[in-house]
């Protein structure tokens, strides 16, 4: 007998893209929805430990996971036929290589009960223990029991006792059931094995420095001594990264290799409406992206907007591309690839907002070039003037070597700087490039608070004079120009800059005064801020 908990909304249409957790067969039945709904208010049964859903054949699974047939067959072999005991399994491989999906699909195929717990959701040992016990004891949290767990279990020793108790119970149940079934039917029993699956197992290492939980879980097989219990660990790191010299039975490793480019192509091509077009798109786009990442998840998120770009010139998306068209599409598409390589996070904004900004821009009536530059120059969030100065001084302190502060900020600092710049020969340029690279690798430097304040003082005193006059001349608002006042709340401003992540504060005792800071802003942002103050930033930037 099989209970289907299928979704009534699951449509027979072909899913658009195939990714890690998606290997399910798309055919669905909705005849059991009612039963399931009724079932939800009844106590849980052993059947709820099954994965559920339609049984799939092994061949389906293999064809659904390109490049994974070896691993699938290996796991099936290790799991063995019905009711055969097994040694612990250790399934590992990089993220989004199909580990979890394949295990779950196989259990659906084999129709055997399992207790699944992800160590990400169960973020400490207590929750992991309680979650496993809840599942084994067929306990459901709801309002009536105050969302409490079946057992309160904090200590590993308690856990082992409870677990043994619960497991024997379940196994007895299973045995009884299979006896009944074997009378009625010849095939289709769920057997009397129960499997414990631990997903994201690598995270356990971080809990309490893995001193107790990790050995306990690896040792479960020996501790329980129950042949009816199978253990499966799924991890994204290899077994070597776990401390494993503890005298327990070594789990059998199954390694999921990274997908090859060809596999990736096949996976991405799955479930595409216009296979030909997508394939021609992949010809162009996949290679550069694959150099950066081979993770299906990342690839599919970055490919999606690219594909839309690619299809932009097409009116009919169902068209089968010929050579000429491919070439045209490519030339249209080419400039977008490079920019997308560095773009990991794309934010869409609502069309209405977009329109508004467009209007504003049109309204300015500038030619397009100018518009863009203006856009670049605008700082799109508000900072008080003194915070801006402080940010700039932090940026300078992070960028310039401390030894040059004196020469940069004394009265003739600017001219001194210019002298150095005068003759850029080839060699100097090369040197500069390599130094820039080095700077990029090293990142911004750190500085103590005193240096920041000194730079700030210099900058403010330099910048004040012209701006003061300006204000006096321009609008007569500068009576209480607040220039003296700029300095008054500096520490407050600094803390709010730190809060906004524009300046990083190193960790140390604040009373000691030895805290070091680091400006994390990019040069672009610093330039924008400087522009909004009309501050000549480049004059103070030390360039080698």
């Amino acid at each position, binding site marked *: 007998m099989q209970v289907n908990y299928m979704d009534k909304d699951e449509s027979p249409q072909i899913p658009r893209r195939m990714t890690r957790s998606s290997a399910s067969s798309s055919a669905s039945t909705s005849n059991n929805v009612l039963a399931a709904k009724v079932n939800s208010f009844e106590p849980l049964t052993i059947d709820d430990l099954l994965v559920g859903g339609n049984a799939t054949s092994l061949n389906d699974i293999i064809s659904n996971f390109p490049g994974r047939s070896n691993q699938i067959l290996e796991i099936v072999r290790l799991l063995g036929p019905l009711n055969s005991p097994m040694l612990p399994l250790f399934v590992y491989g990089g993220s989004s290589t199909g580990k979890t999906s394949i295990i779950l699909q196989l259990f659906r195929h084999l129709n055997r009960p399992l207790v699944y717990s992800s160590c990400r*959701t169960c973020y400490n040992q207590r929750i992991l223990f309680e979650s496993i016990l809840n599942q084994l004891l067929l306990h459901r949290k709801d309002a009536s029991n105050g969302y409490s*767990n079946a057992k309160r279990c904090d200590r590993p020793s308690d856990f082992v006792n409870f677990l043994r108790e619960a497991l024997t119970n379940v196994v007895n149940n299973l045995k009884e059931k299979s006896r009944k079934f074997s009378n009625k039917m010849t095939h289709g029993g769920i057997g009397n094995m129960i499997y414990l699956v631990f997903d994201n197992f690598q995270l356990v290492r971080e809990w309490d420095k893995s001193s107790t939980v990790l050995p306990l879980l690896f040792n479960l097989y020996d501790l329980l001594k129950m042949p009816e219990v199978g253990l499966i660990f799924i991890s994204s790191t290899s077994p070597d990264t776990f401390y494993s010299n503890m005298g327990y039975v070594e789990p059998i490793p199954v390694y999921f290799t990274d997908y090859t480019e060809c596999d990736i192509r096949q996976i991405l091509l799955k479930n595409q409406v216009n296979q030909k077009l997508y394939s021609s798109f992949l010809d162009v786009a996949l290679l550069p992206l694959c150099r950066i990442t081979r993770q299906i998840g990342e690839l599919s998120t970055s490919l999606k907007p690219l594909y839309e770009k690619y299809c932009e010139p097409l009116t009919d998306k169902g068209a089968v591309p010929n050579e000429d068209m491919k070439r045209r599409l490519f030339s249209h598409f080419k400039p977008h690839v490079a920019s997308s390589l560095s773009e990991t996070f794309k934010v869409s904004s609502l069309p209405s907002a977009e329109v508004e900004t467009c209007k504003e821009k049109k309204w300015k009536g500038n030619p397009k070039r100018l518009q863009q530059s203006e856009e670049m120059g605008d700082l799109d*969030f508000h900072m008080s003037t003194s915070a801006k100065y402080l940010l700039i001084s932090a940026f300078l302190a992070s960028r310039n070597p401390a030894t040059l502060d004196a020469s940069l900020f004394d009265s003739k600092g600017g001219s001194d700087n210019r002298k150095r710049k005068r003759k850029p020969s080839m060699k100097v340029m090369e040197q500069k490039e390599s130094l820039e690279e080095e700077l990029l690798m090293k990142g911004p430097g750190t500085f103590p608070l005193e240096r920041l304040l000194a730079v700030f003082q210099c900058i403010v005193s330099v910048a004040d004079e012209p701006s003061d006059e300006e204000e006096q001349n321009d609008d007569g608002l500068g009576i209480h120009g607040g220039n003296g006042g700029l300095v008054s709340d500096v520490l*407050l401003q600094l803390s709010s800059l730190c809060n906004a992540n524009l300046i990083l504060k190193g960790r140390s005792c604040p009373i000691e005064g030895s805290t070091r800071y680091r400006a994390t802003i990019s040069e672009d942002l610093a330039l924008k801020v400087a522009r909004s103050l009309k501050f000549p930033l480049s004059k103070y930037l030390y360039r080698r």
Partner: protein
Amino acid sequence: MAPSSPSVADSLPPSTTPEVAENDLQPFFVLHKASSQIKDRTSEGQGKLRKRKELSSSPQSAKKPEGSMTEESDCHLFQQLQSKAFDIVWKKIESTIKDVLSDLNASVFNDIQQWVLECFNATRLLGEPTISEATRSLPVLNNATPGKLFTALVITRNIEFVDDIFTFEELGHFLESHGCHVAVISSTEFSLKNGIAGCLKALLREFLGSAIDSADISILASWHREQDNYNKPLVLIINDLERCCGSVLTDFILMLSEWVVKVPIILIFGVATTVDAPRNILPSHALEHLCPSRFMLRTPAKRMDAIIEAVLVKHCTMFNVGHKVALFLRNYFINQDGTVTSFIRALKVACLLHFSTEPLSLLHWRALAEGQKEGKSSLSPEAMLKYIDELPLDARRNQMVDHQTKKSMAEGLSELVTVQKLWSTAVLCLYEAGKYSRVQLLDLFCEALNQELHLVRDSECYAGDKKDRGLSSRNDPCQNYSIMQSRGLICQIVRKVRDLPTGMLHQLIESWGKLTADTSKIHEKLQMLQSSVKCEDGRSLRKSSKDSPKKHASRVSVNFDKDARMLNSQAIAFLDYLVRNFLRPIESMPFHEIFCFKNIEKLQLVLIGDPRRRIQVDLLDFHNILRCSCCNKNSNALLPSRHDSSIMYSLAQEHGDLINLHDWFQSFRTIVLQHTNKRKQKSKQSPQAKKRKNINGSADQNEASIQARFCRAVTELQITGLVRMPSKRRPDFAQRVAFGL
């Protein structure tokens, strides 16, 4: 005054009860406790009790020694009235500000709500897992794409966060009222210390409404499937993304994304800086699970303009500020703080100071109260007279002697109010025009209050008139208006109007029409302008219809150009008329003191604490505070009876930026031992051996205690931020951090 400190943040919502509202003024006063000037302000801040104290020390009551009982009670009554007046006026201002801010946010909130609905429907389309599927720990296998968390990045555009706590609270209420389950979690929950358990606990507490011992997201899944919870979207608002601990947030997002099909949570992040912020905080494998959209809140400058417009230009109450105060507030906003919250706070302080220092300001309250009763403000001279008569004796003791004065004053006040009305209309018209050249109302407001500029304008106007007579045949008619010659924002605005294309000019004139609708004086003038616009419109229309299409282009453009110029100059004439006749700053009017707060020094003291300077002053002039008998004011000698840190700081004054610890200690020791030394010198004859026997123990003790006192004093100085402890490189030297006053 810390805008980022949690205490200020907590007291942010303007809807706080009066008690709380008074309490949150506390920080200012604590800072200034030492200064004697401020003492009376402290008392004002603390309500009646302190006020009574102030009375006893104020010169007025000191003049009349032990005044009669009636007067005393009268004073008391007066105090009560003052605080009542402040309460009422401030409540009015506060509610106005609140309305303005929520109006500003309305459109964004609607957008967000729309987006939430769309997301909710999208998750519904993905498939609806059954209850047992949704509540167990297995991932759902039957959907095609791995779920993404719909995420809204609400850009607040201000690195200071205080203003937006209120905004996000409002957003939460708004979404709740539109049928969402809303949880608001602050960044403090995402700390490294509490880890993921902390934020899950907060999440469950917000959604389920009860504290749960072991926070587990499966509880949320169970809850979500109960009753009608399933039919509402779950919205989680995290109001300052930048301050969240990245690693905890990453874990949280990954965990939510594991459950996204079963518990579709919609995230709303408040982002202070740019949309790049999540990229800086989160690693790519967390970002991959987000499906972000962006929403922009209004900039603080826009909010500020809206508040200024509602409170100070449109005069929701008659409370106003003088030019210098306005300028100070503006500079404080732009240079120092940049939050609307602190601006409101400053306004509140100004209001409080005004009511407590200006006895006649009670009139204001009376007028407001009457106005509320009758639905409109009644500011006729008669009404004013009535209010003045009703004032308690104490208030009009000095000012009003006879009926004549009273009457003239009432008339003056009434006139002041009408002139103010015209002034605000003029400012609003200018602002409307200024919108084309991106002028901020805050700046314009400051300029409009500027008395000097007004005087300059007047004189220029006079000069301009003379000039006009001489050089009337100028080419550009616009140049004739004196308004063009003056400097500043107004001139900038007018220049922009001169070059405005016709379509926009029509728009502008239309909006002027709306603004001036209830001030007949200006409206009449505007109607003249409008009629001329209409007739010109008609003319050009006729012309263009008459003209054959071929000629049309060239001829009409010429005509059109001319007409447009005419129109522009007429618009400028209108603005000129406004500026010349109605833009009279309130400070140039008689009796403005009653409604207008001008005392910038006091406000400055209250707002910019400058605590470090204060500490230094107090350490050096400790006598002003302690008023002890042993030290007299004049002598600069360091007496051992002084407080240790005070001695130490005075000694430190003699050093440069490095203080030799040994020298410092020695001089400290000498001062402390001064007294005992004197005594010792008397008994110096006593032989060494004897001393060793008797005093040795106590001397050691003495030495140790001096050392201890020294250390404590240095630590105190260090904590107050005046001195830095010796570094490893220079173990013998402490470093002075603060110099000068």
